[in-house]
């Protein structure tokens, strides 16, 4: 009896201490870029345990780095976008975004009047007709533009967001202090904030995640489109590209001369949003018809 109770006590204390030990480790966690490979492994293991405990699902967290000779670019065919928002919800599903209270969507589709194209002052965000496209309007989806000269990276006081070598602008969710300076600095409203603890339905969780991408986040940190870093570093199309029913979205490696994105930049009339701000976005809008 005595042995059993001692054993139980020991087990309880060990269990509780490991819980607080995990919290202590998370509190003292370094910025991702400063971690050694061994530290990264420890962090991943701890995160996987936390997610298993919290969501009851086994997550596979990748820390795959950028490949060499790669610079990701995105193309969007404005003559084909019909404003159906399938990309928005495919992104939400792929990237484990909070669905309600708060509702986070990385892609925002705006409706513009034909004839006055990039006058964003008259953009309508909340259009909800019976069917799209509506005559006389065109639709323009906007998400993080992964600028080559990103103003958000420049203003972050703790360097929680940075530009990876393959051009993707990422956030280390465990390093972000939630000051929202980057949100004030972004000219494209690419960033959204977890105003409270994210709510993701358990059966809709995507367990193939990347540390810098779509792993489940926590409250009061910033997040944004990551060009589906968990997919593209393995050569797979981002979720929004695959979801678009009209094939308006194009993705590829800007440094590969045979990619779709290079073809369209060289052969179609491309433009980028707010180019006068010299942010050098990698999101190219064009009209194929």
């Amino acid at each position, binding site marked *: 009896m005595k042995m059993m109770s001692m054993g139980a006590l020991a087990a309880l204390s060990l269990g509780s201490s490991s819980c607080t030990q995990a919290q202590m480790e998370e509190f003292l966690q370094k910025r991702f870029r400063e971690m050694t490979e061994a530290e990264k492994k420890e962090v991943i293991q701890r995160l996987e345990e936390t997610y298993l405990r919290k969501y009851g699902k086994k997550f596979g967290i990748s820390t795959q780095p950028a490949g060499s000779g790669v610079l990701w670019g995105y193309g969007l065919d404005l003559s084909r976008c019909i404003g159906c928002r399938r990309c928005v919800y495919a992104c939400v599903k792929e990237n484990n975004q909070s669905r309600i209270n708060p509702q986070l969507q990385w892609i925002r589709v705006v409706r513009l009047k034909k004839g006055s194209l990039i006058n964003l002052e008259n953009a309508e965000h909340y259009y909800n007709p019976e069917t799209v496209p509506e005559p006389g309007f065109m639709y323009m989806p906007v998400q993080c533009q992964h600028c080559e000269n990103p103003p958000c990276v420049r203003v972050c006081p703790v360097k929680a967001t940075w530009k990876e070598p393959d051009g993707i602008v990422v956030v280390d969710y465990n390093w972000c202090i939630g000051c929202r300076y980057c949100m004030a600095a972004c000219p494209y*409203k690419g960033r959204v904030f977890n105003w409270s603890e994210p709510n993701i339905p358990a059966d809709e969780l995507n367990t193939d995640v990347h540390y810098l991408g779509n792993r489940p986040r926590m409250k009061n940190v910033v997040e944004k489109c990551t060009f589906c870093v968990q997919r593209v570093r393995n050569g797979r199309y981002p979720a929004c590209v695959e979801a678009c029913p009209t094939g308006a979205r194009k993705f590829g490696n800007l440094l590969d001369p045979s990619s779709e994105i290079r073809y369209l930049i060289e052969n179609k009339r491309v433009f980028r949003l707010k180019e006068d701000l010299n942010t050098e976005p990698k999101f190219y809008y064009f009209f194929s018809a």
Partner: protein
Amino acid sequence: MEAWIFFKRTVRMVFVGTKAYYLWCAFLLAIIGAAITFYTKQLDAGLIVTNMRDQVSWGLYIGNFTYLVGVAAAAVLLVIPAYIYHFDPIKEIVVLGELLAASAIIMALMFVLADLGRPDRFWHIIPFIGILSFPNSLLAWDVIVLNGYLVLNTIVPIYILIKTYFGKEPTKNFVIPLVLLSIPWAVGIHTVTAFLYNGLAARPFWNASILAPRFLASAFCSGPAMALIIFQVLRKTAGMKIKNEALFKVAELMAYAMFINLFLLGAELFKEYYTATIHLAPMQYLFQGLHGHHALVPWIWSAMAMNITAFLIFLIPGTRKNLITLNIGSLLIIVGVWIEKGLGLIVPGFIPDPLGEIYEYLPNINEIAISLGIWAFGLFIFTLFMRIAIPIQRGDFVHSKYGKAAVKRQYERIKP
């Protein structure tokens, strides 16, 4: 040992005071207590309890922060007239001004802390322990200059007070250089805060070169106005002798600052309304309403009325030299600049947002309660500072070995 006795005596002293002192402290502590409950709610549920959303991601907290940095900058600039107009002794003004600045900076830093999403990760911003993105991020600059200013504005008064307590003259070679340093540093903190907003191309309402001069001009209006009122309160409750002429001189200088403030505002209005590009939208939202949204319009026009009235009061010698109108003018300019620089600067910067959406932000009860709590806390800290500083200055609170201190002629005895 001596230091320990001094410390014990100061702690004992803050618990003793007049009835008005007790009532005032109880009032402030009540507000602080209420604010703590609201802040616990915010920590628990997240910032969703505020009215800030993705479209307007900064609100009342950052508005108050901006205003208080201005007050802190201007409070120390009172020492300039002290030097130019040869108040004697100079130390009193320095001590009070710097303690006011320190309280304002503490309030400003607390507002930033209240606004942070993850205050538990605060150590990330400490240089060398965390990662501070200096010199790229203006927030990193702000962290350094604000904390440096706080250190400066606590070292000098504490040094002077301790020296006075021990009946010694503060070493001029230590005090004067630091006081002289705090003047450009004061300009620096407010310029850095202005550059924080100025450097964002995404927000055309803020991306104007005139922002830093406007900040300084409005700070020189509101900060000394607070000091004027506080000096009069201290004159009544703590027997601090300050001549009316001194107050009127400060008021005259404030009149110049108010003129510059109004002039720079006029320049901004002309530029936006005359060229009438798409960047007029935020200013139009503020002054007229945009696409049917006009929540801030009554606020800004009240602020305009207050600022202009205060300017006239301070300009006309008759009203400036009358204590009643002077105080009315001071209150008007304090509130007017708060509206213009707090809500009236932060919120229109986000409206319309970069994709043209208009989300009307007005603070809700959670934000108002926490903001009032932080103001109460700052006033409480300042009250405690004064509770210790003035008796030392007055000569009542000295080390027993030295009896009556050297500096006394500025004060009369007041029986508690």
